[in-house]
């Protein structure tokens, strides 16, 4: 029989004993097993789920850098141009590599052509991580629907650890933001958010609400509070 030592949705810090027993399963990288005991290794929120006879414990980190995973959509900033690749800052300890094969549909000849024509330093791109094994830098692609150079909109940066909260359970938060403001929102897993709004006033309200979510990511009932916040701000500003 499992013994749970913390209450669900409480804040845990490194070294805290979460649970012990044979019927406990850790679902997070940030849970360390020592014998039958499960300890957390990071500051975060615990969630405990009972599936059949197993207790599944998970930790949502509250802080921490973005570690790329294959399949993630990220928003990167072109930092440097090589002969046949771009180096892309994805606000992570590891920089993204975008090769010319993953960017252009036609053959590229570095002798006659320059990469600068397609993406220059300072450009933002929406990209997908195709491979990352920690031994080498993450490989990106901009081939695909919705990927490529960012031509309009604004970028909001938040802490990568707050991204799951901005998206919400099954996208509930981001859908609410879209519905309430009428803006287009694309959340990169690395903590950059691309927004396209009908006008500047709405954009300001949206940025404020994203920053509010970032600051209060660990609290409950946040979606409703942010909804109220947007309505109040829109009323106050008359937009």
């Amino acid at each position, binding site marked *: 029989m499992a013994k749970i030592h913390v209450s669900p949705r409480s804040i845990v810090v490194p070294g805290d004993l979460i649970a012990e027993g044979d019927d406990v399963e850790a679902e997070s990288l940030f849970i360390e097993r020592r014998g039958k005991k499960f300890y957390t*290794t990071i*500051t975060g929120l615990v969630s405990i789920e009972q599936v059949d006879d197993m207790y599944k414990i998970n930790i949502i980190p509250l*802080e*921490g*850098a973005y570690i790329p995973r294959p399949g993630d959509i990220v928003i990167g900033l072109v930092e440097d141009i090589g002969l046949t690749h771009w180096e892309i800052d994805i606000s992570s300890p590891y*920089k993204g590599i975008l090769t010319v094969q993953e960017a252009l549909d036609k053959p590229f000849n570095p002798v006659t052509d320059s990469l600068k024509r397609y993406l220059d330093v300072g450009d933002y791109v929406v990209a997908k991580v195709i491979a990352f094994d920690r*031994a080498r830098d993450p490989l990106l692609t901009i081939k695909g629907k919705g990927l490529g150079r960012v031509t309009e909109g604004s970028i909001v940066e938040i802490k990568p650890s707050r991204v799951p909260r901005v998206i919400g359970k099954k996208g509930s938060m981001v859908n609410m933001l879209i519905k309430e403001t009428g803006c287009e929102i694309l959340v990169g897993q690395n903590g950059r958010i691309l927004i396209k709004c009908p006008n500047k006033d709405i954009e300001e309200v949206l940025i404020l609400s994203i920053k509010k979510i970032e600051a*209060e990511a660990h609290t409950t009932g946040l979606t409703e509070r942010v909804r109220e916040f947007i309505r109040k701000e829109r009323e106050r500003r008359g937009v």
Partner: protein
Amino acid sequence: MGGTGAEKPTLIRWEERNGEKVAVRIDGRLPEQLRPIRIEVGVLGNADGSALVEYGATRVLAAVYGPREAVPRHVALPDRAIIRCRYHMAPFSTEERKTPAPTRREVELSKVIREALESVVLTEMYPRTSIDVYMEVLQSDGGTRTAAITAASLALADAGIAMRDLVAGVAVGKVDGVLVLDINEVEDNYAEADMPVAMAPSLDKVLLLQLNGVLTHDEFINALELARRGILEIYKLQKEALRKKYVEVETSTTG
């Protein structure tokens, strides 16, 4: 920083309390009593993680940057992160100005603190990166290295770096034949022995232990136990401080 020519002050007074003879220290504490401890997490905006720790008048600020790309690139390791530590005393931290250049002592302390932190941080989760820990002693009144390690581990946790446990440290000393917890500067200057200890309490492992002076075998065992009790107390305060950072946000927004 070494006794001056001045006469040695009375460090231990023996008093009658409730019919028992107890040792009272120069600042009025009992031998097994810590100084007032204040811990604050997330005090710096630009760092990824930060903490301010006070043991009485000793005040240390720690800042953590990383995991980030290691520069120069050749110092990075393919299978884990490197930890770089800088323990430094501000020129204004002591009674007489300390030169800001790193001294032999500071280089040594940076090394032992780094080794203590390396054994709790899960460096293999962040290969090819560096984690930089800066500890600045703002005011020194004994026990700065242990306060620094306490602050450093909190700053690491605040930066969201995975670690097996927090680290807490405290110094034990032998003053006029009495074992005392959390030794201060005056006591340290005239102590027979001074032993800084840092532990990972939930792992129950000692991560740093140095000893200046002489202790008998029994005294050493008692001193280590005394340090362990002090560390457990500090450990509780550490966890409280880390949680408080988030509770504060909650109350300031809902209230």
